[in-house]
């Protein structure tokens, strides 16, 4: 797209673009390129030289049971977080859309978890679920439900899912509410006159019309769960106990920074890159189909 009326000049626009382009090249294209390049190399035991091994790193990664475990963890984690965060947010948005008194107050009180960093959210929930000092943690142990996320893999997963979803519900709520409010009231009134009760109105009219928003949020939630939750995992469980909560992004960190295995780590990064590009591409296509009216 181009405006009709523009200014003359070639040097000036390039100068204006220079800062962003420079940063983009230096800290995006160059590292991305290096990651791809490094994923094709393998260093020797002393880290002194590296040889070109083609796609061997990728083969190793894809057949590594640890990586497959991380992939499974990522899937389970993302699925739970997305499902929980989307379901709760949609439910709350539907209630808030009922034109009650005080809706704006409810909305203000529900959206600010978005401002809390994932790592901080993790700390908040840690304080609640710590087996010895946490309110809920102690209560669970007291009523006989054994609870220790430092020892039990499933407890650890539950904890990080709760911490991650808690934050994301706020974000989803805002978008769902906006989506609901963009459905013309007259369409719902027509449905009411046609004989549809509230539940039927929701499933046959509202939910289909909300599908662009739902789909968009699904992609955003999955991306969030895959990548931005690193802080939660690092703060709470460090991928443990015993890799029970090690997700793909956490594994990249472990292999790259702690184990210093650049070839493997880069290969994992490239695989994740492909995944994100696919997700984003799908999202853009969905956005284009957004308009019904």
């Amino acid at each position, binding site marked *: 797209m181009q405006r009709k009326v523009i200014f003359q000049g070639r040097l000036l626009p390039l100068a204006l673009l220079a800062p962003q382009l420079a940063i983009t090249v230096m800290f995006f294209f160059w590292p991305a390129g290096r990651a791809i390049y490094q994923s094709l190399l393998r260093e020797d035991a002393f880290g002194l030289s590296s040889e070109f091994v083609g796609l061997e790193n990728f083969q190793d990664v894809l057949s590594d049971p640890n990586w497959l475990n991380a992939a499974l963890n990522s899937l389970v984690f993302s699925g739970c977080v997305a499902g929980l965060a989307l379901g709760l947010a949609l439910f709350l948005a539907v209630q808030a859309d*009922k034109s009650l008194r005080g809706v704006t107050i409810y909305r203000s009180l529900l959206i600010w978890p978005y401002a809390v960093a994932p790592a901080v959210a993790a700390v908040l929930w840690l304080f*609640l679920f710590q087996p010895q000092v946490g309110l809920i943690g*102690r209560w669970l142990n007291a009523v006989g439900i054994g609870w220790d996320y430092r020892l039990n893999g499933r407890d650890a997963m539950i904890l990080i899912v709760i911490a991650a979803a808690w934050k994301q519900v706020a974000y989803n709520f805002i978008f769902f509410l906006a989506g609901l409010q963009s459905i013309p009231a007259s369409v719902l009134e027509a449905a009411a006159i046609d004989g549809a009760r509230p539940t039927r109105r929701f499933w046959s009219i509202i939910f289909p019309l909300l599908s662009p928003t739902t789909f968009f949020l699904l992609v955003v939630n999955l991306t969030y769960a895959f990548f931005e939750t690193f802080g939660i995992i690092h703060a709470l469980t460090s991928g443990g106990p015993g890799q029970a909560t090690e997700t793909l992004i956490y594994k*990249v960190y472990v292999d790259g920074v702690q184990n210093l295995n650049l070839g493997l780590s880069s290969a994992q990064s490239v695989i994740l890159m492909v995944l994100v590009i696919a997700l*984003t591409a799908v999202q853009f296509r969905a956005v284009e189909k957004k308009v019904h009216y």
Partner: protein
Amino acid sequence: MEGTAAPAPAIPPAAPLAEPIRNDALLRATRRRRVVSRLIAHGALLLGVLIVAFPIWMTLVGSTHDANTIGRGDVPLLPGIHAAENYATAWNEGGGRTHTTPASVMLRNSLIMAVAIAIGKIAISILSAYAVVFFAFPGRMLAFWAIFITLMLPVEVRIIPTFQVIVDLNLGNTWPGLVIPLIASATATLLFRQFFLTIPDEFVEAAKIDGAGPLRFLKDVVLPLSLTNIAALFVILFIYGWNQYLWPLLIINDRSMETIVVGLSKMIGRGDSQNEWNTIMATAVLALLPPVLVVALMQRWFVRGLTETEK
């Protein structure tokens, strides 16, 4: 022509009005349905607000008691009296087993980082969007797509090689090293580009007639028009910057440059019950206060910023 050929129906006579039939059962059911719906709505929303607030409340409470109470496991539901000393300790000395940086220092660092990222992103994005929208030059579309692609990869995915670049440039543990790689994304540019495309042609033509060059036009016309968008973006980007975790974790080793989000997680260590929970909680409250305040005070811009940037 139309409608006058057919005979019109008779006007009703002024007969006494008959008593209408009422379906009382249906009426009662309708009324009940409405009341229940209202109750569910308020109930669910209240529950939602409570679940959202509960962790914060407990953290606040935790920050006002002394370490022994919590360490014993007597987790209180109401605030205690040790607020002042806990916050003072957190502020001045830091806490946790490893006695990290004082909160005052970490808050300052986070503030610098968040503001720098927000302002940096806004500044270069305005310039880039302006160049792409108001000029035509070879390579324009190429530049645009190059910037656009950065949307596809969050920093976490390119973390290791970006780290290598910074190390190679000797920018580890420096403010530029911390801030600049995080400015490399395109959300703000896209938003401004979209907005600039809607500025009427007449404005540009009038400016040209007045003899204003492109830079003048940017300063005197485009920037004032963009203020709402800038405010909305500032909120989003400030939060984004403040909440950064992985990148500061990698880049910063110098304790004096620690940000509060990373510092907080370091205080927890292994999550032992022997931690100085009171100080940790005080630090947590300090860590989440600024972004929450920004959202609370600038809520309208915040919501607008969210919905605009995801279009």
